[in-house]
């Protein structure tokens, strides 16, 4: 039983990485922008966060640095895509390629660095409950932040006026523009916010999840997060659920390895990627369903007054 509690706990932890990034990307996509640069932003945020913690010893400053790095890169992306009208796919790809290169370059001095041992978190009383205490209530605070973020997003998108405006910008920028909303500035805000969350996710990876720096350590999680928004048909609660599901797939791999199952380790490592492909194919099978749920202007440029 205790093993499963630990598996559950590590699933939530792994899911948090994906959830933070995917919720950020969800905000982008609700505003009509696809940012394929998630992987690059997360990598740069991971090294920014890691380096900050190495020098200051403060995890929260590390998170802040990661968010800053993500937001800064997203702002450059936004300037190109929104004001210069460049192709969103190509620009996002450029961001990813740049991020992969730049993080490897900047991180070279930190490859051998180690972070100090962390104290374990536990919520008073709840953390002492049998099974569920270990499974759910002894997590890093960021795990609960991700959950709260999902709930907050549900409220924001479907209950608040600002959320309605954001969705309007994503569904029909022309109408939102005609109503007098500053479409481009709203999109900029959404992209920067999304970048900050991707950055937070990246910093969480290098500071808490696997506290070290290795070149390319995000290992495709940015791309899986991008796929998650489609899996979830652009709904925050489903994004969170999907993130935990994929966190589970990632953890199952280590679990099976630990049990000494006779499968090549590479097959296990490939599991999350194969699972992404399979689920993506299953979800996309019905194009009408996707079209109904997808923000209508997703990926399309908007030029006011043209």
């Amino acid at each position: 039983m205790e093993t499963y509690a630990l598996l559950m706990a590590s699933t939530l932890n792994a899911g948090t990485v994906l959830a933070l990034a995917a919720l950020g990307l969800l905000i982008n996509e609700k505003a009509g922008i696809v940012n394929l640069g998630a992987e690059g932003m997360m990598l740069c945020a991971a090294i920014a966060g890691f380096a900050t913690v190495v020098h200051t010893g403060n995890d929260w400053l590390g998170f802040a640095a990661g968010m800053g790095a993500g937001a800064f890169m997203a702002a450059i992306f936004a300037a190109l895509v929104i004001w210069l009208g460049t192709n969103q796919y190509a620009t996002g790809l450029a961001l990813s390629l740049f991020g992969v290169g730049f993080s490897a370059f900047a991180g070279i001095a930190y490859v051998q660095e180690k972070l100090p041992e962390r104290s374990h978190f536990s919520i008073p009383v709840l953390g002492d409950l049998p099974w569920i205490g270990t499974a759910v209530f002894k997590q890093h605070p960021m795990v609960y932040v991700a959950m709260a973020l999902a709930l907050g997003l549900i409220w924001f998108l479907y209950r608040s006026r600002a959320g309605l405006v954001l969705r309007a910008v994503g569904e029909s920028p022309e109408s939102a523009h005609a109503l007098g909303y500053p479409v481009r500035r709203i999109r900029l805000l959404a992209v920067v916010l999304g970048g900050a969350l991707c950055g937070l996710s990246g910093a969480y990876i290098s500071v808490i999840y696997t506290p070290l720096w290795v070149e390319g350590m995000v290992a495709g999680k940015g791309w899986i997060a991008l796929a998650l928004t489609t899996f979830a048909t652009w709904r925050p609660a489903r994004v969170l659920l999907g993130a935990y599901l994929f966190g589970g797939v990632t953890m199952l791999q280590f679990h099976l390895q630990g049990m000494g199952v006779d499968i090549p380790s590479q097959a296990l490592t490939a599991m999350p990627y194969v699972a992404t492909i399979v689920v993506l194919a299953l979800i996309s099978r019905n194009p009408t369903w996707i079209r109904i749920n997808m923000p209508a202007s997703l990926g399309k440029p908007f030029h006011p007054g043209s």
Partner: protein
Amino acid sequence: MLRFEPRAERSRLWTWASPLLALALTVVVGMILFAALGKDPVRGLQMFFWEPVKSSYALGELMVKATPLLIIALGLAVCFRSNVWNIGAEGQFVMGAIFASGVALMADPQSSRFIVLAVLLAGTAGGMLWSGLVALLRDRFHASEILVSLMLVYVAQMVLGYLVYGPWKDPAGYNFPQTKTFEAVTLVPRLMSGSRVSMGLLLALAGVGLLWVFLFKTRAGFAQQVGGLAPDAARYAGFSSRKALWTALLVSGGAAGLAGALEVAGPIGQLTPYVPAGYGFAAIIVAFVGRLHPVGMVFSAILLSMFYIGGELAQSRIGLPKSITGVFQGLLLFCLLACDTLVMYRLRWVRKQGAQ
């Protein structure tokens, strides 16, 4: 204030001036980066733009790296021109290398010289298999080709890892994760002695001619591109978008697979975990910087090859990490996308501003 004003039509001048301006911007940023790291910027530039061309041996090495970049980019140009976003050429390259190695490992010293053809064909088939999967999932299940092709890069790397750490590991290789070195008969013949340049370069140049004819002189090539430029017009004309999808992915996968085969049966000579060198991703930049034009991509492939060699030299001669290559690659694509605005817009000085 400065304003962007839409042009009536695409500027032909800026279509080709924009990559040059982007390169100039990248060089300026690079020099600032060198200076910030306390290195002599001029010496830094020499590593990238002078050392790779200063001797005939260096030129040969430049071609060795430009060959796979060009071959992959030629295939990707077909994809991007038909608006199919295959960004997983790296995985198709690895799969090609694996399939080619499978054939090469079956050879013995008595094998016929023609086995080289089988090696190259196997590599091409491997790449096509991998990109065919993308086409199948996109065609039958409407799954995004961007995400599927990218995910398959990771899967291909795992397959490679499994083979070189497992069944294909050289028993006499001191437990290094690599296959035995291939028999000499399976290797692609070199063009001349004293340089590692192989027949692959000729294949790449033949590919340039083939692509030019296909794109600009055949009806099939025209039909292929209309779908990318104007999907509605293509449908009206009866051009099949499914056929365009399959063609684009199979051509680009096959090209990437061939490049992978040429690489393992050429400069590397065995299958190792270091086969994926990022050529599949760099080729995306080659394709865009070369304007998706067969001849343009010859120049951009050489440029990106310079970045690779410059990075290696910067590491060995002035002590900068090799990954500076990736920084410059990303910067170049960024600058290019920004400069491309000038193709569609002109900058105008406007004295008084109107509404936004």
